[in-house]
């Protein structure tokens, strides 16, 4: 992708994100979202995040398109720690720390 395209993406993404944030504040809430739309919006992160990373989680590029047991174990650890402790920072620390350690031991 060319530099110009990347900058265009940055600009449009910046404007679009601002418009999303300004939407209701900017128009002083004329009309609100229907309840079903609010419900769907609440599910965006919990659906978009897993869908985004699914292929790279199971078939990471570093493993040349195959499954990498070390990386998959680190991902599973992050999931378990995050769900158990309800803490994103702890989950990131556990997952990234475990992977660095496993790679160091294995390499």
């Amino acid at each position, binding site marked *: 992708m060319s530099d110009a395209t990347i900058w265009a993406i940055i600009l449009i993404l910046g404007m679009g994100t601002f418009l999303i944030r300004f939407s209701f504040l900017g128009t002083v809430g004329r009309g609100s*979202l229907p309840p079903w739309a609010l419900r769907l919006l609440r599910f965006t992160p919990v*659906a978009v995040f897993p*869908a985004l990373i699914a292929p790279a989680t199971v078939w990471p590029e570093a493993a040349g398109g195959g499954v990498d047991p070390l990386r998959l174990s680190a991902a599973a650890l992050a999931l378990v720690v*995050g769900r158990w402790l309800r803490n994103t920072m702890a989950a990131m620390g556990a997952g990234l720390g475990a992977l*660095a350690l496993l790679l160091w031991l294995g390499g």
Partner: protein
Amino acid sequence: MAALFPSGPPLGDDAGSGAGRGVRRAFRQGLLASLPLAPVFLPFGLIFGVVSIQAGFDLAQVWGFSVLVLAGASQITAVQLIAEGAPAWLVLVSALAVNLRMAMYSASLVPWLGAAPLGARAGVAYALVDTTYALAVVHYEAEPGMMMAERLAFFAGLAVTLALPWPLVCGLGAALGQALPGGLGLDYAVPITFIAMTAPMLRSRAQIAAAVVAFGLALVLAGLPSGVGLLPAAILGMAVGAAIEARDERRRFGR
């Protein structure tokens, strides 16, 4: 940031202490309330910087993202998809979808800030991230007697800690990305980060179902051109989650 401090004649105040003092106090309260959350956004900026540099972006682009977009998850989403070679339209749609939840934040602040001057509302919108939103709404509800200038000053106090340093943090991550050796598994930082963000949200049956369906369908569709499977997978996950939640609520509260 100046837009968050509307000037003008002092408004009436309770104990005759002067509106200026109330505004300064609100600003300090915002600053104090934001400090415990400062370490929470730090890793996301660092990860964004590291991932961008390792994906071949330059420092100007890292700063472009962090100043203009100011939203960690969508910045990482965009960089990841660009690095995978996804088409530009898909990068935009996906990264904006990650930010759609902010429309909810915008709507829920209207009762508190809807009467503020347009410039101030634009300033708030620019700095409206998960943490500033959550802290502001909790404080406004706890102290409904605040004046508008105080509400804006409180938000400005939050933004000074939680939004203003963002480009700096992303830049630090970029420097780190250039300095760190290989072999640390940083190529896998994006999956770990997004799993770590999602896992604490998996509370109800509906949320778990949304995540599992989205993850599963994205795997099934992984053979499609880079990233294209993301949209149908995410939309189906959202729909399944919302449907299950609606059904569970009807059961719990009777029809």
